[in-house]
């Protein structure tokens, strides 16, 4: 057992006597380049060739930059300069890398050597001296003795970083009820995403799907994406007899046309995939599946809440309009979603 092992408790380790003593490092195996100067010279030339190849690679990379200037609308120029600069750089790196490693493996000594370790623990003497310094510093400063200084300093050290945290207070506005409202309101027309063209009820045939945004969203200059992230809707027309509607919400649809929030109630991805024959809506991110025929309740996947329904109606000109905003928050659940 070594000196290092002796000084510490071995815990649950057993002490089994080894059958043989450590035989020591294996004898060195002589390489061809150790034996013959001819082989060594060959290796030397090989290494030089590799370094030379590296220079060629660098030149290819430079050539790639100048040979393929950007041509508007022509992607082959981009592809070529990227390819040749990349391959040139790779060759240049490989030349140096293989050259250096080959040098080490053929010409530098390959006999293993042993170096002693020392314990991480400082010697008792050093530790005693360190402790002495701490005690001396403590005595000189009165750190332990002068409790008033020490405690008031702790107080100061606790309080001084707080402004550094508070100063980040304006990273974002205080959350009001913005998460619970969208830009839908009574009379807002349902328009196509992204063109903003209003949708006539008569254009929505059975089985068709429309990606919908509220009227006016596509012309917004400010906060367009924030509003869209809440207001996106999926509009589907199914055979009215296939719909199993809540009697209280029977007038939220129009002749089998239903509108549901497109924002997944799990973590907010767009629920963009509609399977016609099952009436299922599928979120491509985490596969939450909602049954459109059954108030978009969750039939599979990690989401827990049904997709909120947008009550719709038809205006005098035959365009689809919202009856109101969503009556419950859209998107992922959060702490005070029901408040």
């Amino acid at each position, binding site marked *: 057992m070594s000196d*290092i*092992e002796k000084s510490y*408790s*071995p*815990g*649950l*380790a*057993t002490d*089994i*006597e080894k*059958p*043989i003593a450590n*035989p020591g490092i*294996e004898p060195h195996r002589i390489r061809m380049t150790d034996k013959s100067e001819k082989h060594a010279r060959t290796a030397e030339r090989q290494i030089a060739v590799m370094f030379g190849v590296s220079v060629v690679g660098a030149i290819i990379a430079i050539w790639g930059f100048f040979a393929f200037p*950007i041509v*508007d609308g*022509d992607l082959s120029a981009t592809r070529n*300069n*990227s390819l040749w*600069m*990349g391959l040139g*750089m*790779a060759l240049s*790196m*490989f030349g*140096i*890398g*293989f050259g*250096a490693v080959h040098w080490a493996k053929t010409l530098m000594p390959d006999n*293993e*050597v*042993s170096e*002693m*370790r020392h314990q*991480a623990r400082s010697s008792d003497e050093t530790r005693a001296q360190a402790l002495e310094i701490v005690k001396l510093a403590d005595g000189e400063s009165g750190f332990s003795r002068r409790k008033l200084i020490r405690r008031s300093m702790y107080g100061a050290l606790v309080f001084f970083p707080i402004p550094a945290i508070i100063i980040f207070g304006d*990273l*974002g506005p205080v959350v009001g009820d913005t*998460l619970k409202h969208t830009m839908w309101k009574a009379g807002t027309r349902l328009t196509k995403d992204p063109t903003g063209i209003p949708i006539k009820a008569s254009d929505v045939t059975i089985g068709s799907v429309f*990606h919908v945004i509220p009227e006016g969203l596509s012309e917004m200059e400010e906060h367009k*994406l*924030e509003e*869209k*992230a809440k207001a996106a809707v999926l509009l589907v027309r199914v055979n009215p007899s296939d719909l199993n509607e809540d009697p209280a919400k029977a007038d939220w649809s129009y002749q089998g046309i239903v509108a549901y929030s*497109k*924002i997944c109630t*799990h*973590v*907010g991805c767009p629920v963009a995939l509609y399977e016609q024959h099952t009436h299922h809506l599928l979120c*491509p991110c*985490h596969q939450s*599946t909602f049954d459109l025929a059954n108030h978009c309740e*969750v039939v*599979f*996947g*990690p*989401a827990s*809440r049904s997709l909120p329904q947008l009550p719709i109606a038809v205006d005098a000109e035959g365009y689809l309009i919202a009856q109101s905003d969503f009556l419950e928050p859209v998107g*992922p*659940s*959060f702490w005070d979603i029901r408040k």
Partner: protein
Amino acid sequence: MTSTTDTSTTEAKPGFVGGAANYLDERLSVSAVLKGFGRKVFPDHWSFMLGEVALYSFVILVLSGTFLTFFYQPSMAEVHYDGSYAPLKGAQMSIAYASSLDISFDIRGGLIMRQVHHWAALLFVAAAGLHMLRVFFTGAFRKPRELNWVVGFLLFLMGMGAGFTGYSLPDDLLSGNGLRIIDGMIKGIPVIGTAFSSGFFGGEFPGTEVVARLYSLHIMILPALIIVLIGVHLMMVIIHKHTHYSGPGRTDDNVVGYPLMPVYVAKAGGFFFLVFGVVAAIAATFTINPIWNYGPYDPSPVSAGTQPDWYIGWLDGALRLAPSGWDISIFDYVIPMGVMVPLIVSLLFLALVAAYPFIENWVTKDKREHHVLDRPRNAPTRTAIGAAGVTFYAVLWAGASTDLIATNFQMSLNQVLVAMQIMLLIGPGIAYFVTKRACIALQNKDREVVLHGRETGRVVRLPHGEYIEVHETVDKYELWKLIDYKDYQPVLARPDSNGKISLSNRLRSAVSKIYFEDRIAPVSKAEYELAHADHAPEAVEQKPSRKRKSIDA
């Protein structure tokens, strides 16, 4: 160099190098540094290069990333694209996305640098992860290196963070959906979730702030932390000296290998160029993250089959495998378990990874320094725990591809997902059991080789008609590798001075039993001598009869 040659060189007018060395030494004592480190010994093994790959990938990331900062603009202000990529001409998009397109199409070398940067990032996290596995399975985290394990663990986390923040910078459709998922997760955190989301995005998602904030995280805060942690990591390697695998001449008191100068300077230095070469070659020939195909971020569209970068996959998988309908409601306040279960499970997993060295040491109470690495088979329980952890991670990771698995193999999406959920629960257990048995079988095989030699496959018939297989003894160097390992035994829970057995004592006793009760001890001197006492000179063995003889003797 002896002092006499020193004087002679100073007298003989040193050349430029000698002069420069003298200049530096007189100001910075570089000779002392060189004397201390120049011949430092590093052991050689392919698995020690994994950490190097991670380090070099990071250097590549800094170099290529610096280039990208000259052209990238972290602004979410809207512009109309007028670069050379025709399909998006005139499209409304953020400046961040437009400048990423410009880097790809309008700046020579921009695309190759973007791809080098992205591939190097994927490699960085992969190499760091494999390096962690190497450290785990060889027990390199044992005293005195526990703290360095924690530093390495933090580096892995930082790597994931740096990767994700960078992935989100182009502000394309794919990464925007990734951010949306992060937003959904943040919002789900009880009490502080929505405020935290507002603080992160500067208001409602997606807002106009987040890309700039991710940029400062990505190019300043996280890289600075990574550089500091790498510095600490390598300092500790210097303090502890590198571990080595058990083998002839290797002990806990020495380190066997090749000197830094010249061998490791050439090998490790050359290896940097090889890693860079591989990354450059891949980046030149394989497209990664073609942001121009995705389009600018828009909260409404999404493409099917979306995948995050590989190192985020396990977290995305956790989100997919989460149970439905477990939401908790307290006084009308909601805790969305579809978010919290994956969060808690992945944080617990990470906590266990970080704490493992301390858990194992609590069981063994082995206070000695360990510098000779374990072969994984010689620590069967640790290896089995590692295999269980890898399986857990792998199932979550595969979970991020449930939709692709279902479509590519034409299976039901729902069944694939349920199968994954089941695998997540039972897979680690199976992996634990199989691995532990495999390790013990390998240890038994090693014992067999030590005691009776290697099977040669040469069958001979003895004069009296019996057939035996000739065994060949292994040489002492090979033998040493097979017998040199640490062995532990379970501890009984003993009463303390009050005659009571404390709960922690009972627990430790139980865990030590799990760890060591079916241990295979290394061959002892007595066993070895007994086995070799009556050997036929040519090491011919008759297994059954020899055993009987040993017992008789």
